């Protein structure tokens, strides 16, 4: 048999049920062909299951061994790795959860899966030196409305079912999951200056402001948006304190002036 055919058959047998490769496998003194080959096919499943267990430890705690095991088995049956680094094998698990019965009906599991994937992505996202809040110090008050901000690549803003952060924290200590409320919550995930991935739940004004800021809107535009929403006089102060926190968390990597406004 040609090498290409042998490899195709070998791979088919590792992944699936086709055992045509066994014609090419020698038995050993102690094992028959099928038992020898099973070392590879068994290891394939175990190895890919461990990639998923490593990436989604809290989802596993929340689901329990039986449900998580069934999910993992279904995912492995449906998903091949195409990347030299197995780190990306489990990236499609959240979408898989939404598509596959019976898990699609469990928004709290989806929330956990999205949060864990975002944490993994934040951990090794692209590097950029965070910008220091000192960069704002010398600016006159007239300059502020035109300021725009560039954000770190590690950031994601997740819109998930309400109670996801609480469910994550319960799963971390293997406590029973809290009752999930209806509605949504926004979670910010990022890599901090300590190089670890962090998350926090955002109140609605911060979630809106951060969404706008990441879309390139100026500080002035964000203030207007908040003022319109909240009919609040102290909007500039509140927006400034949000901004200070973003600097403190290391979310911002650059400051620009919006040419249209300046």
């Amino acid at each position, binding site marked *: 048999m040609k*090498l290409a055919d042998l490899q195709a058959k070998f*791979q088919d047998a590792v*992944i699936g049920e086709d055992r045509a490769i066994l014609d090419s496998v020698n038995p050993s003194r102690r094992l028959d062909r099928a038992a020898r080959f099973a*070392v590879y096919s068994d290891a394939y499943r175990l190895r890919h299951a461990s990639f998923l267990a490593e990436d989604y430890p809290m989802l596993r705690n929340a689901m329990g061994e039986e449900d998580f095991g069934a999910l993992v088995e279904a995912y492995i049956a449906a998903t091949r*790795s195409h*990347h*030299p680094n197995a780190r990306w*094998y489990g990236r499609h698990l959240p979408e898989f959860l939404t598509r596959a019965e019976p898990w699609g009906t469990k928004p709290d599991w989806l929330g956990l899966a999205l949060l864990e994937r975002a944490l993994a992505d934040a951990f*090794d*996202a692209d590097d950029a030196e965070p910008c220091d809040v000192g960069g704002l110090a010398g600016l006159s008050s007239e300059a502020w409305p035109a300021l725009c901000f560039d954000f770190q690549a590690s950031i994601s803003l997740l819109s998930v079912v309400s109670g996801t952060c609480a469910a994550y924290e319960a799963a971390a200590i293997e406590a029973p999951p809290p009752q999930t409320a209806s509605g949504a919550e926004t979670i910010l995930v990022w890599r901090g200056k300590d190089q670890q991935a962090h998350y926090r739940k955002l109140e609605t004004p911060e979630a809106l402001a951060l969404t706008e800021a990441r879309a390139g809107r100026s500080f002035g535009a964000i203030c207007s948006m908040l003022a319109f929403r909240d009919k609040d006089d102290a909007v500039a102060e509140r927006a400034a304190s949000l901004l200070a926190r973003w600097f403190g968390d290391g979310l911002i990597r650059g400051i620009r002036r919006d040419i249209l406004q300046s």
Partner: protein
Amino acid sequence: MQKPAPLGFGLGLRPVYYGDILDNKPPVDWFEVISENFMIPGGRPLSVLECIRADYPIVLHGVSMSIASTAPLDFDYLGALKRLAERFQPAFVSDHLCWTGVHGVNLHDLLPVPYTKEALDHVVERIGRVQDFLGRRIAIENVSSYVTFAESEMDEWTFVKEVAERADCWLLLDVNNVFVSGFNHDFAPTEFIQSIDVDRVVQFHLAGHSDQGTHKIDSHDEPVSPEVWALFAEAWRRFGPVSVMIERDDKFPPFPELLAELEQARGIAAAVAAEKIGAAA
């Protein structure tokens, strides 16, 4: 053909030990780094590697080159490997004599090769292209295997020896893999070791395996076994001194236990060297 100078006695750089290494600068001569783990955009792993590289030599050891695959060479992967090598300046770059998948799939395993003339020509041609692309000789490692193929036309050691000679590459001799495959396929590990050209071997791997009764598995989750230490002594007698390292990838012990295991390797190497001096006197 000048072999790279031996680096001494090393360990695998694994995330569980980052703290031990950064805090204590342990007496390890060098670290072996899994290349793919650092083919990421950024973050702590890369900055840890920068720090460790400042204090230790490293070797980049890959698991996804898939040199024996009939799939086309992955030049995106090789480009990433080349950039990593430019950034971290490893003493050398290695991967395995195996394939990891075809048709765009990576099975993340070191899959066995039939020892045929066709496979030999194929591997030799690909190593040549990889070495041209990377601009350096690479080291190729013998793997543990759990099947042999009816198609094979030669012994594993003949295949390995021919690959090294014809492709003009280095060899990374995994002593544990020789032992594991020897058990699984009923050959004498000694015959393997004695067949390989001394001039080609630049590095050894040592590792633990698991014993399933009917077969052994290259699990890297145990200390090095007494049989593998004995084979290491024999290999050192033939090839030493070369760079040596211990691979540990599961059931991680406290770091000092790995240091003690590394001391054992140093002790055996010293005893073999003394024996050679004694014989010469």
